[in-house]
């Protein structure tokens, strides 16, 4: 059976980290298995964890009055879900729900924040990787906002 640090090393967000840093991060993580339809986190609740999806899928949702539940984005194998644990006020901004049976590594964000404070090189490496993921999602969100498939009246 593979150790947790080996498992997370294969994920794009942790790729290239030193083995010492991988072991430190893995020390804050545990394997979890969730059924389809389980809530992982709720908007406004403390964001003290984040997740690496090994198998399955997670939907990021928002409850819109009059429109019901809207799926903002889905995440799949290899994706990291959650960056609210990194930034004050450490609250989830959306709901997270598994949409199929899902295998995750769940990380204790409070534990990892503490380790980043104690080891700034680890903190810098993690911040670089999360910033890159955030930029990609920001660009994707901008494209979503453009509504490129909608009909634009001419003239």
């Amino acid at each position: 059976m593979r150790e947790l640090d080996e498992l997370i090393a294969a994920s794009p967000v942790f790729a290239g980290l030193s083995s010492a840093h991988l072991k430190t991060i893995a020390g804050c993580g545990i394997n979890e298995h969730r059924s389809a339809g389980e809530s992982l986190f709720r908007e406004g609740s403390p964001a003290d964890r984040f997740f690496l999806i090994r198998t399955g899928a997670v939907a990021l949702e928002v409850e819109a009055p009059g429109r019901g539940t809207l799926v903002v984005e889905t995440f799949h194998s290899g994706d990291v879900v959650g960056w609210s644990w990194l930034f004050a006020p450490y609250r989830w901004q959306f709901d997270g729900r598994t949409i199929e049976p899902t295998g995750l590594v769940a990380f204790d964000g409070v534990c990892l924040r503490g380790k980043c404070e104690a080891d700034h090189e680890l903190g810098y490496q993690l911040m670089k990787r999360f910033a890159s993921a955030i930029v990609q999602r920001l660009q994707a969100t901008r494209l979503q906002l453009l509504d490129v498939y909608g009909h634009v009246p001419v003239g």
Partner: protein
Amino acid sequence: MSRSAEARTTVSGDLGRGPMVPTAFAVSGKRRETADTWTLELEPPAGEGFAFVPGQFTMLSAFGTGEVPISISGDPGAEGTLVHTVRAVGLATQAICDALPGEVLSVRGPFGRAWPVQEIEGADVLIVAGGIGLAPLRPAILALLAGRERHGRLMLIYGARSPDQLLYAAELEEWAARGLTVVVSVDSAGPEWLGHVGVAPQLVRRELADPRALDTGSAVALLCGPEVMMRFAVSALAERGVAADRVYASMERNMQCGIGHCGHCQLGPTLVCRDGPVYRWSELAQWLAIREL
């Protein structure tokens, strides 16, 4: 760009009358794809056939409402019937969508250069479609599947606005069963949608991160959709190692004559109706970077 630099398959579009003379095709079948999009089957006059290659378009018109360029969405292996998938976005396209079986539409064509279906035999192929952009790619998909054994791995990444805007929903499953990996994503959805939510370029980045998906060092990509989506998709492809000279895109401009005479569809030194609509991205990128064009 030199046309002779890449002589891709075309089919002459004059039906024996000259390319500016329309032919009356009768609507023989009609299927609703989404709230505003219809697929129409059109029959040429008795005794006349209709042949085309994937990627070509016709100038289509319901009489009295003006002509519009519409890509052919039918099966190139099923000669004789012309199939178009049309989204009603204005007077001309609404009139075409309103045409009933037995009524007649005016057709000129086919025109334009094709997807390089034969030229890319042996390679892995990634097809990236956005919205109504799946329609011009459908003939290429059907041709690739008809010669499935001659191609490497085939993948379709299809982005749409929402689940109710997906074209050819029933066919997507059939294509998957015939050896095409189909990955569908929508920009927004309700909780009943269990597929991907997110933009197509992000899906390109994600799917190609897995080296088992395609050989990105030799794979060919065929793109059709909103130009913004295609630009972002090309960036994602480049990040994953698919070079611009292995990317083909179908472009849309103001095509009017269809034969390179009127100049309305000029894009740099090229005319989209004659030199396109399918271009190699490496030939196109320099012109797309000039905003005035």
